[in-house]
């Protein structure tokens, strides 16, 4: 559609207009598909679509005439690379909640767009809705006169609407018009009727359909419907019938029956639709439901509302997503969290008779550091806040229980209260209890609010489990390595090891002896410690390795290598073996991998059938690298005779042929050559043929291959046959004639 575009720089201030628009580009757009001369709805839609494609947001600055074609001049603002007002609103709302100021950048380009949108008579309710939403954030300077026409248009749409989205957009726009103060009294005349029409689209399980003859009902649509109903209630000129509100509250409770659950305690909604096109993910569905729920709860007060732990579960779902991948998902997440946070603000406007909402505000407990070091004397710190990080009301955090992970023994800690540091808003424990030793634990926290009244307002959930790893410096002592005699158990050599420092023992053993390594490990609190990994590695000079696991008894770690049984495993390789000890654990701050020294093993000779040691990996460059270059040695050709000798013999060979011809002449046989013309020709041809065959043979020897020769020979042979037959038969007949004579 953007054909014949020319992009030029444009400096602002042409008409003294403000704000400055430097940094934008002019795009001259020729829209051949749109009939620019007509000003009807179709051409407007066409132009509108052309302007809002390809991630450019255009606004018109003028019209120029090029030849006979009217070309409209637009400015494309590169800073706002969105395709629609809906996405603009989502981006701005996300910035607003996160506290990022972008109005100064965005307002100059977007406000005129909003004005145009609101002024255009062909804008759909969806466009109006999002234009007003954006305006609510940017607060553009729009005169109120626009809104007379819009208001009456919207009221008409509301009366005639039949689909859920029509209701939603039109009612939402009216609410926004009222909120932004463009019109003083925006009221819905027949609130009960409208409420009823929206309610009619609901299903018995709490879901809503989009229209009366539309496809299946979804939770996503239910969220939209609840927002629309909230709008109706807030705009009603007379109070909506309470019984209808109660039925909607019942629907909300039924909706919560279809809440699904993740293992970590997160709750979410998901529509299971057969139609994949319409499918919104769990995030989109849940955020729609939460928006609807909180909107409805804001304008009504009721007795039935979802329990606090489910609200907390929804908050955990949103938080547990982390940072989503797309802008829309981010908006859904942040906006829902903001709804869960902000619904505590009581509306002190004309609805002062209503109480504050009964959708509880979730309080989230988090532990910033889950690895605590006993050596550094780390303190256990816990933070409690609302979902977006605002302060929580006064409360106490209690550490109820701490289980060592992996064992179901009784808790090592009972009911410790954490102190509160108001400066950093952190709850902490001065020092970890003495019963907490090195290892992995599951700590159970509980939040206790100081003001019991607030229990209805805030959702704290029951106990929160957090996995904490406590690390420390493990003492290793009484490390010894011994060579024992197998039979008698007497010690031949014994050496102490210092496993904190360097070691270089030098032992020797034969196959009748045993090697014993032992050491003890103790935690800072004096308990025996069992590491996750304890390996002993013996490595031969030929790089053959053997790894053994060091076992543990009650008191200490030890490993006995009985060489008599290991002879076969070692492939009967005698020689020097390097010893290496590896001890490690997640909770151990001084895990190590140490070379202890070497042992010279003397093993017997391998029998014939012994297994060979496995091939060690060779240097890859040797195997895959370039090989030595080989020069090809050709077979020495046989000694050929000297050139002269061969030529002499050639001459000798030809001599008899000459003698033959001489003999022919002397014999006088040439008299019998036919003198008549025709037979003479045949005779000549016969001799010529034979000569040709002999020539062919010469060529065959020199150059040709057998098949060509055979082909030529075939032709020549046929020729020769005919000719020869004629010649010889002629001669035969002449002889026969002569004979009787």
């Amino acid at each position, binding site marked *: 559609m953007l054909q014949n575009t020319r992009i030029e720089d444009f400096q602002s201030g042409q008409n003294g207009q403000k704000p400055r628009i430097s940094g934008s580009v002019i795009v001259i757009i020729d829209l051949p598909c749109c009939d620019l001369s007509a000003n009807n709805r179709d051409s407007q839609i066409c132009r509108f679509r052309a302007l809002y494609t390809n991630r450019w947001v255009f606004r018109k600055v003028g019209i120029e005439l090029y030849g006979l074609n009217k070309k409209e001049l637009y400015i494309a603002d590169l800073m706002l690379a969105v395709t629609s007002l809906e996405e603009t609103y989502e981006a701005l709302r996300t910035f607003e909640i996160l506290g990022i100021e972008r109005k100064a950048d965005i307002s100059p380009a977007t406000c005129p767009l909003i004005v145009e949108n609101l002024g255009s008579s062909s804008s759909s309710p969806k466009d109006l809705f999002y234009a007003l939403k954006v305006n609510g954030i940017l607060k553009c300077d729009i005169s109120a006169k626009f809104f007379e026409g819009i208001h009456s248009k919207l009221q008409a749409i509301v009366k005639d609407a039949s689909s859920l989205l029509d209701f939603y957009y039109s009612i939402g726009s009216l609410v926004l018009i009222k909120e932004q103060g463009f019109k003083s009294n925006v009221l819905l005349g027949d609130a009960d009727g409208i409420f009823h029409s929206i309610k009619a689209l609901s299903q018995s399980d709490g879901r809503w359909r989009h229209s009366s003859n539309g496809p299946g009902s979804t939770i996503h649509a239910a969220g939209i419907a609840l927002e629309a109903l909230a709008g109706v209630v807030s705009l009603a000129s007379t109070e909506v019938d309470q019984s209808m509100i109660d039925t909607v509250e019942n629907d909300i409770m039924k909706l919560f029956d279809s809440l699904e659950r993740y293992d970590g305690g997160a709750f979410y909604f998901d529509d299971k639709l057969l139609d994949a096109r319409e499918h919104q993910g769990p995030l989109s569905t849940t955020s729609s439901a939460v928006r609807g729920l909180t909107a409805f709860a804001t304008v009504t007060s009721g007795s039935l509302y979802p329990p606090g732990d489910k609200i907390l579960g929804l908050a955990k779902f949103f938080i547990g997503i982390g940072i989503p991948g797309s802008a829309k998902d981010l908006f859904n997440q942040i906006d829902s969290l903001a709804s869960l946070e902000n619904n505590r603000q009581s509306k002190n406007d004309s609805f002062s008779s209503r109480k504050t909402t009964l959708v509880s505000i979730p309080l989230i407990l988090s532990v910033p550091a889950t690895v605590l070091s006993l050596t550094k004397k780390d303190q256990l710190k816990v933070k409690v806040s609302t979902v977006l990080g605002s302060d929580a009301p006064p409360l106490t955090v209690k550490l109820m229980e701490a289980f060592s992970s992996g064992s179901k023994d009784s808790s090592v800690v009972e009911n410790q209260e954490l102190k509160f540091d108001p400066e950093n808003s952190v709850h902490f424990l001065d020092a970890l209890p003495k019963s907490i030793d090195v290892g992995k634990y599951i700590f159970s926290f509980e939040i206790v609010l100081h003001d019991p009244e607030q229990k209805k307002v805030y959702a704290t959930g029951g106990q929160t489990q957090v996995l904490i790893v406590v690390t420390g410096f493990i003492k290793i002592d009484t490390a010894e390595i011994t060579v024992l005699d197998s039979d008698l158990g007497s010690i031949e050599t014994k050496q102490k090891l210092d496993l904190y420092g360097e070691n270089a023992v030098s032992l020797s053993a034969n196959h009748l002896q045993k090697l014993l390594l032992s050491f003890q490990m103790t935690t800072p609190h004096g308990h025996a410690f069992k590491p996750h990994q304890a390996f002993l590695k013996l490595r031969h000079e030929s790089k053959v390795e053997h790894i053994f696991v060091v076992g543990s008894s009650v008191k200490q770690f030890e490993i006995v290598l009985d060489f008599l049984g290991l002879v076969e495993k070692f492939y009967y390789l005698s020689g020097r073996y390097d010893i290496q000890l590896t001890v490690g654990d997640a909770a151990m701050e001084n895990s190590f991998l140490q070379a202890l020294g070497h042992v010279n093993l003397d093993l017997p000779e391998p029998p014939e059938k012994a297994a060979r040691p496995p091939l060690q990996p060779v240097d890859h460059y040797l195997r895959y690298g370039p090989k030595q270059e080989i020069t090809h040695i050709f077979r020495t050709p*046989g*000694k*050929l*005779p000297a050139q002269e*000798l*061969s030529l002499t*013999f050639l001459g*000798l*060979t030809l001599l*008899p042929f000459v*003698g*033959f011809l001489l*003999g*022919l002449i002397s*014999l006088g*046989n040439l008299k*019998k050559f036919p003198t008549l013309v025709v037979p003479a020709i045949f005779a000549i041809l016969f001799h010529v043929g*034979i000569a040709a*065959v*002999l020539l062919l*043979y*010469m060529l*065959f*020897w020199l150059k040709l291959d*057998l098949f060509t*020769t055979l082909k030529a*020979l075939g032709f020549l*042979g046929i020729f020769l046959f005919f000719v*020869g*037959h004629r010649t*010889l*038969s002629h*001669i*035969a007949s002449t*002889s026969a004639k002569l004979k009787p004579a």
Partner: protein
Amino acid sequence: MQDSNKPYETKVIVGGGEKVQQWSVYLIAVVVYMAIVGSFPFNSFLSGVLSCVGTAVLAICLRIQVNKENKEFKDLPPERAFADFVLCNLVLHLVIMNFLG
């Protein structure tokens, strides 16, 4: 051998036994050559030898067939024998050339 009894062509080829002698001379020459220069390539030597031998044999056959005093071949026209001789020679020489290499 009586030269006048023989028809024209056979006199040409057969020529009173001198022909066979000629081929025998050839044979001896080839063998001597080989003895001097060695038997590489051996196939060439063999083809030389066989050529001499084969042609001598064919010549002898022709003489036998043409000789009027030979009872077995009385009805065979000498021209036919000569034509056979020519054909066999051609085939022999083809094989020889192939083997010569």
